[in-house]
């Protein structure tokens, strides 16, 4: 079986510009199923743009982004939500719903994928326990710390049992100890077979968890 066949994410000569700014210039790489990959580089290098391209939040100006056999740019407004439901995303700024409790934040994701309501409680309980938030289920986001909010974002992403997990600077707002705990959780999830793409500029984390690295500077791949 070729690398092309086992891969789940393919970037082929992808260029993305925002106005005159070239965020990504002719970038190509593949990510295999079940792989844990770090995307490193300084701020503004294009790491988040790669994640946005995978999520279909933006489309490339040229080249192709193929995820699990689907050309993301060709997905129409009906197919795009279904596609996104297969991807779990942990956002740098958490993106939790401020007026909903932690449990409700996770339950919303389950409602989005259309899981029957009777199954929500057990699934929410399971992922919140996994993320170490089982005592915070009825709290609101404003009552939690940055690290806890990051774990809420992770719990929501995991709740839908995604094929691919995208993490955008998940340790950016966390101290070393909390970051390390979160990374251990990512390792555990990766061992269950999930593909993880993590954008980070935390080199200590990258060094400790020896995974494949894509380094990007000024929109160009350097390794």
């Amino acid at each position: 079986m070729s690398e092309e066949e086992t891969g789940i994410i393919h970037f082929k000569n992808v260029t993305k510009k925002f106005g005159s700014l070239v965020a990504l210039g002719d970038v190509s790489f593949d990510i295999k199923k079940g792989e844990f990959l770090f995307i490193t580089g300084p701020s503004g290098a294009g790491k988040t743009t790669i994640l946005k391209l995978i999520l279909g939040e933006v489309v490339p100006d040229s080249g192709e982004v193929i995820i699990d056999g689907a050309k993301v740019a060709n997905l129409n407004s009906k197919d795009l939500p279904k596609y996104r439901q297969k991807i779990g995303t942990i956002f740098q700024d958490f993106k939790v719903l401020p007026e909903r409790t932690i449990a409700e934040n996770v339950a919303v994701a389950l409602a989005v994928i259309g899981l029957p309501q009777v199954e929500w409680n057990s699934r929410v309980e399971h992922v919140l326990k996994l993320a170490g938030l089982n005592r915070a289920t009825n709290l609101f986001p404003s009552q939690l710390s940055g690290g806890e909010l990051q774990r809420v974002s992770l719990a929501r992403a995991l709740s839908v049992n995604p094929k691919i997990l995208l993490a955008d600077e998940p340790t950016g707002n966390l101290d070393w100890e909390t970051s390390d705990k979160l990374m251990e959780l990512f390792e555990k999830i990766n061992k269950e077979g999930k593909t993880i793409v993590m954008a980070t500029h935390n080199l200590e984390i990258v060094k400790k968890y020896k995974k494949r690295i894509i380094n990007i500077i000024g929109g160009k791949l350097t390794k």
Partner: protein
Amino acid sequence: MNIHLKTAWDYIRRSPFQALAASFVLTLTFFVMTLVSVLVYSSSKLITYFETRPQVIAFLKSDATDTNIADLQHKLAADIHIKDIKYVSKEEALSIYKKATSDNPLLGQLVSPSIFPASLEFSVTDLSFAQSIIDNVKGESVVDSVGFTAALGGETSLNDVVTRLKTITTYVRIGGIVFVGLLAITSLVVLLVITSMRVVGRREEVEILNLIGATKGFIRSPIIIEAFFYTLFGVILGWAISFIAVLYLAPTAVSYFGEIPILPRDALGIFELFGVVFAIEIFVGAVLALSGSLIAISRVKKAR
């Protein structure tokens, strides 16, 4: 509770004054709409009453035989524009006269049945046929003369009354429709404003839901449900207040109009009338809620 219902209910709870503003405007709209509907119904009944009450009296010649009268009666009965034919004999005519002059018994004692002609009274189904029917009846050999009901003063005045009623009813209908239309537009604008505020306030939530794969329907549902809450509240409250007001005023109105059935006389008929109005208002409310919320949502910039 369904997640969309819960979300919609949470929005309402978090901004009660917006919710009150929308609900009260819609209540006013449906209150007026119910009253206008009842007014239209009553005015239609009023016109129908005047158009179909016994209007034509064919006074028969004194030598008309029973066979002649029966023949004419059958002929009139065969005409689809004529209904409620009634034969009034000389004796019955005297009795009617005596009853009409009961406050002055002397008048009744001075007359005998022989001076009153027998007559055939009937109604026309539509006043526009009256003139041709009268002309035909006048040509009958047993008919001496033809006239309209004396109570309304004759053919010209009856026509005047009905024409005036029709004019008033038309004004009531047009005025009512215009007023209800203006209120409906105001309600729609209020719904649009409140829903737009809601959509703008939810921008971050919409973005998050988009990114985790929510469909357009999923994102729109709570906003549409919220608009439905407001209209449902407005319909029920507006309709109920009008219903109570009409029930309260009905005895006075009914006694004022006497035998004219401006409102159904039985409870079932009243419920039937208000049931139909309620069903129509629910439909109008649904259209308002759906159009208001969808227009507001469509105004928000679309993201991929």
